[in-house]
């Protein structure tokens, strides 16, 4: 605990609040899906909260992000409204995507959150293009792409890193290595143990960090952001983490070796942070309880609001295919 990454009370509690919000958002979503309120896929990020919050807490308002199928945490870490997220999961008009996207495609344009993505690795080239435009408009903004270990076997990853280094783009490539690509353990889908090694092929720094330690993640993210803003190019950050649940809600994850989950539960990112805050006397148990209670109240209100939102009309399906008025285009 003496690695110098101490923090202030406000900052520490804010990080804890974001992480706890993500945890409880996901746990509630799981229950709401079981209750029949969510018609589609859910890929919970429980266990990976520190990676999302650590990176997003290093960003500024002009920065933009792309995410993955496991994107709720990134979006909440960026500051999205859980009520509108639930409304989208419930497929309501006032959801983030007017009920047209669901979990896999959620966006918040105002926050520069350019979207979750249903295709593994697809957010990587998109963030690369966003970084290109950030560079062109020269306002100091960066683009971040979150993805998992599985995505690093896609061509999109390799093409993008090559392009980004070639053009010194202001980009952060954040690989949340949760040890599994869908149902396949990392050692069964790639020979390299550390995805960060792959940075060497493209000539960018590859940094490994404990992905369950929010302060450690933030530290490497800050360095990478500063490097990008200076015009020195992209960084590949590998956050070593673990998803406590299966690949998607309903996957029992029987493919995991016995005892693995328990080992990682002992290194739960929420506990890592709260233990540090307590050990360093930055915050008290009652501070943390207060934060937890506040999050529960916020999520109660979010679920209630979302549940009361209107459903779309069936024929709303015909809108938003094109930006301009291609009248009736969807029908013919």
């Amino acid at each position, binding site marked *: 605990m003496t690695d110098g990454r101490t923090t202030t009370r406000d900052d520490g509690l804010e990080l804890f609040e974001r992480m706890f919000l993500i945890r409880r958002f996901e746990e509630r979503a799981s229950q709401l899906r079981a209750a029949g309120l969510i018609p589609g896929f859910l890929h919970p990020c429980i266990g990976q909260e520190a990676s999302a919050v650590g990176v997003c807490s290093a960003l500024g308002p002009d920065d933009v992000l792309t995410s993955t199928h496991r994107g709720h945490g990134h979006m909440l870490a960026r500051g999205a409204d859980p009520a509108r997220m639930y409304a989208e999961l419930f497929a309501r008009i006032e959801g983030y995507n007017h009920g047209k996207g669901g979990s896999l495609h959620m966006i918040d344009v105002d926050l520069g959150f*350019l*979207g979750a993505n249903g295709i593994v690795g*697809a957010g990587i*080239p998109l963030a690369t293009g*966003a970084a290109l*435009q950030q560079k*062109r408009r020269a306002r100091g903004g960066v683009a971040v792409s979150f993805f998992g270990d599985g995505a690093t076997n896609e061509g999109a990853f390799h093409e993008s890193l090559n392009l980004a280094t070639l053009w010194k783009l202001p980009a952060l490539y954040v690989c949340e290595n949760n040890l599994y690509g869908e149902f396949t353990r990392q050692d069964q889908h790639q020979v390299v143990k550390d995805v960060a090694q792959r940075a060497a092929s493209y000539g960018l720094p590859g940094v490994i960090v404990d992905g369950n330690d929010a302060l450690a993640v933030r530290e490497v993210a800050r360095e990478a952001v500063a490097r990008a803003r200076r015009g020195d190019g992209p960084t590949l950050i590998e956050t070593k983490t673990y998803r406590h649940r299966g690949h998607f809600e309903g996957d029992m994850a029987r493919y995991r070796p016995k005892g693995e989950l328990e080992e990682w539960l002992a290194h739960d990112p929420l506990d890592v942070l709260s233990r540090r805050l307590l050990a360093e006397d930055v915050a008290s148990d009652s501070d943390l309880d207060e934060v937890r209670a506040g999050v529960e109240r916020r999520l109660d209100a979010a679920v209630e609001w979302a549940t009361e939102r209107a459903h779309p009309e069936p024929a709303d399906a015909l809108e938003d295919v*094109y930006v301009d008025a*291609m009248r009736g285009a969807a029908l*013919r």
Partner: protein
Amino acid sequence: MTRFSYADGIRQAIAEEMDRDPNVFVIGEDVGAAGGVFGVTKGLFEKYGADRLWDTPISEEAVIGAAIGAALLGARPIAEIMFGDFVTLAMDMIVNQAAKTHYMTGGRLSVPMVVRMVTGTGGSTSAQHSQSLESWFVHAPGLKVVTASSAEDAKGLLKSAIRDPDPVMFFEHKQLYGGRGGPAGDVVEVDPIPFGVGRVWREGTDVTVVTYLKTLEYTMKAVEALAEEGISCEVWDPRTLVPLDREGLRQSLAKTGRLVIAHEAPVRGGFGAEIAAFAAEECFESLRAPIIRVGGTNTPMPYAPVMEGFVVPGPERIANAIRRSVGRPPVVSSN
């Protein structure tokens, strides 16, 4: 005499749109300093510089992904796929990302990107450098699909494509460029041509022939010969496959009552099928004869010139289809 090639039209459209809007840039393989494999962007790099023409590695998925990502932040990228066949390497970005972004986000984001593709045969360019893939993109709602058949149309349609708020797949036939390396032609003023407005290349009363790209040239040759046989053809070019000028086609069919569709792409599942279905569903009362499709054989493109000439429909095959449409016997050529 005015010299104004198809390549001139495209180059001028890009230059004029770059002058008009600083958000417009070109991205692709060898598009900058090299001026493009077909010389289409020649001279632009010298004038506009590296921030407007981005030479990329051979990475189609990253090229299109980068164009989309930049478009999400307000850029107006023109991405070039050197040979349209290579678009297969970027299909996820085009079909799963660009085409659906506006829709999936409930209209909150859009992708104002143009993908320029060099399409069709070029003389023994064979199976992986000759394909006509336009109908694939017609089948992905959210994309617009343009086929430019002349220099003027190329310029006017590309201007509209660049200004369009949606992703546009822009097909340029490699045989129409007019040769690589020649001097740039004269600047010809062309206004943006609105999407969804077909062009009547020749008026006629007996048969409507729907065609585009290089096949338009073959069709014009065929119908000139048929005029001497007393068959009057109307040649109609949709110019944009999506959106399609249904009213224009309906009016032509109301006049002629017969329909032949000719394109280089394989007949099976080709755009001709869509035109035929539209005519059968919505213009049935106008039709006096069975609809006939003429297209590439349902084969990959062969290398040998004699086989390539067999696969791609030329003036004779088109003329015979038209003769059949009006109940005349085919004319069998000596070769």
